[in-house]
């Protein structure tokens, strides 16, 4: 599994005029807004729907449709392995994919703090463009607002997406039953620790990079092959794997067991967690999903996932059990047992 780096060499054609930075005027709806959108958003993200420049997009949807929204307020905006732009696309794409759907259209809303440089905005737009191309989604409508300095943190992005549900998919919490297996698609805690490494006051030297990526193609191949035997898909972003598994245990009124030995985690990430006293089970993830699948297909599912993009480090980490309903219990690497609770408060704020 190699993550293709985004090509960031498109030249910035922004009409800089007297402006090296975004000003309040760029959000006024007037001339400056138009110039900014023409040279940036419309230029880079052009498609039939967006080019109509209407107040909204007219879409032809049929059948069961997934619909999801997410806001991105990450700090810092540029982080090792990516930036807020691709994160905003991948985040919503993945949320749709977790519904067992194929994401098709997204909206794109910017709230920009005045003072963001044109170059930064351009770099973010370019990464949005490439992320959309990789995920095969179109930005069909959007909005740009500018707030006074000090009223935001460089840039916030909201994306909302829709996608058709895969014909073989039946993703629902009620499908989960005892003996189902819990599978994670890759290494834990990578995104959270990449952000941590560049936080003001916490910087440490490391080559950990965020694993942000679109998972929709991987999910589609899995649905093609395993269909209704995939009972639930979740992306364990904020709150980490521990929080998602607790939600599942509580909603299903069943127990979940975990094996610490089976948790995949990069050595550098594990080391950074040790030093900072963080538990990787609670650290945020991006390019990662949890699948709860029928126990009978778990091994085949794992083999298939390992052969797909973003799945090389996948692992069966636990199973659904009758014991200890509503609780997640982990067998530690040395054979002891402990309850894994939900995250209280925040391990680290503004991670996505």
């Amino acid at each position: 599994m190699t993550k293709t780096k985004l090509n960031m060499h498109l030249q910035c054609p922004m009409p800089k005029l007297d402006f090296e930075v975004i000003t309040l005027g760029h959000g006024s709806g007037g001339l400056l807004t138009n110039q900014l959108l023409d040279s940036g958003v419309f230029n880079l993200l052009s498609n039939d729907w967006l080019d109509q420049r209407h107040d909204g997009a007219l879409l032809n949807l049929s059948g069961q449709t997934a619909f999801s929204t997410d806001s991105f307020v990450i700090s810092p905006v540029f982080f090792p392995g990516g930036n807020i732009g691709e994160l905003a696309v991948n985040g919503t794409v993945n949320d749709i994919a977790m519904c067992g759907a194929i994401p098709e259209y997204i909206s794109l809303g910017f709230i920009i703090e005045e003072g963001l440089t044109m170059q930064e905005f351009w770099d973010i737009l370019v990464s949005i463009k490439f992320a959309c191309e990789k995920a095969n989604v179109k930005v069909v409508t959007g909005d740009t607002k500018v707030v006074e300095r000090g009223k935001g943190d460089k840039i916030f992005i909201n994306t909302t997406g829709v996608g058709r549900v895969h014909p073989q998919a039946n993703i629902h919490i009620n499908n989960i039953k005892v003996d189902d297996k819990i599978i994670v698609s890759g290494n834990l805690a990578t995104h959270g620790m990449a952000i941590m490494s560049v936080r003001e006051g916490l910087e440490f030297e490391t080559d950990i990079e965020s694993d942000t990526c679109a998972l929709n193609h991987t999910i589609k191949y899995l649905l093609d092959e395993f269909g209704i035997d995939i009972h639930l898909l979740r992306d364990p972003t904020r709150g980490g794997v521990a929080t998602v598994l607790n939600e599942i245990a509580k909603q299903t009124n069943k127990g979940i067991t975990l094996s610490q030995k089976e948790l995949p985690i990069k050595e550098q990430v594990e080391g950074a967690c040790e030093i900072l006293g963080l538990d990787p089970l609670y650290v945020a993830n991006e390019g990662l999903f949890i699948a709860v699948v029928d126990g009978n297909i778990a091994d085949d599912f794992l083999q298939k996932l390992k052969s797909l993009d973003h799945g090389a480090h996948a692992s069966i980490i636990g199973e659904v059990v009758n014991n200890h309903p509503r609780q997640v219990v982990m067998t530690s690497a040395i054979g002891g047992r402990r309850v894994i609770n939900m995250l209280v408060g925040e391990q680290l704020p503004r991670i996505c």
Partner: protein
Amino acid sequence: MKYLTEYRKPELVEQYLDQINQSVTRPWTIMEVCGGQTHSLVKNGILDMLPKNLQMIHGPGCPVCVTPLNLIDKAIYLAEKKEVILCSFGDMLRVPGSKKSLLESKATGADIRILYSPLEAVKLAKENPEREVVFFAVGFETTAPANALSVVHANRAGLKNYSILASHVLVPPAIEAVMDDDESHVKAFLAAGHVCAIMGLDEYYPLVEKYKVPVVVTGFEPVDLLQGILMTVRQLESGEAKLENQYSRVVQSDGNPAARSLIQQVFQVNDREWRGIGSISKSGYEVRSEFSNFDANLKFQIDIEEAVENGECIAGQVLKGIKKPYECPQFGEKCKPSTPLGAPMVSSEGACAAYYHFATAMEGM
């Protein structure tokens, strides 16, 4: 990971457990002093693996837990002054003061920064000459050298806008307080490895002598803890009481003299209030008068009322090992990590939080 994975090997854990099982013939009560040890015992599920007649009691070695209410109120008071940037370790933020926590204070506009090192706070002071930077210097002997170093650095740089709110506590007086308590059942101690890495072993010999109690300086990984417990049990079973050092890969008998001389340069021993336990004589550090410019207690006029503890919290009995966290009627009811009544439910090293988060549920698993 070198120096970590070796001490987490399941085969070694099993060997030590076997030996502990073979050695224990009677019930024993051992206190692990340090919150880091409590955390590791619970996190790795070790408590469940030990023989039933071996009871571990979780000691007062969680600095966040024993920081008095009054000092937290002081920190909040300072944080809410416009000119102040208050820097703190993350764990302190959720500890309830008498009216609110630092986290709530932050949410309503106080400039509070979470740092991992006091030297970062000195850097902040340099970068913000128009602001007053206060570091909430909480900790046992382990963090004292770094906090002292921050004062030395700030002094050398001629900074006038850096100070520390010192809340340092010391392990040996706490062990004495536990032994002097009539209700205490503790028969032996696992001493805190990292504290001894700084302080050395000398101050523990008199304790062993006075109370005829085994003390084993112990590390934090599963194999460390089990080896420390085995050494303690062997002493108890043979009726011995001596000081032993399990954590010799880190702890030398004279500790770290350079770090100690930094502590002596900046701090002096004082009487200290321990939250939940009360006042213990000569059990803390305060900033020496030579560095009074860097003592936030003296630098600012701190005008707050003496706070009264919430009577429902039995933190004192928990920290002295008289009660287990789950024996508190409020445990998991009114008192949870999201709404703590007392500090041991806040810090990840706090005995109550450790139990709440990790302990195998008490419902027959």
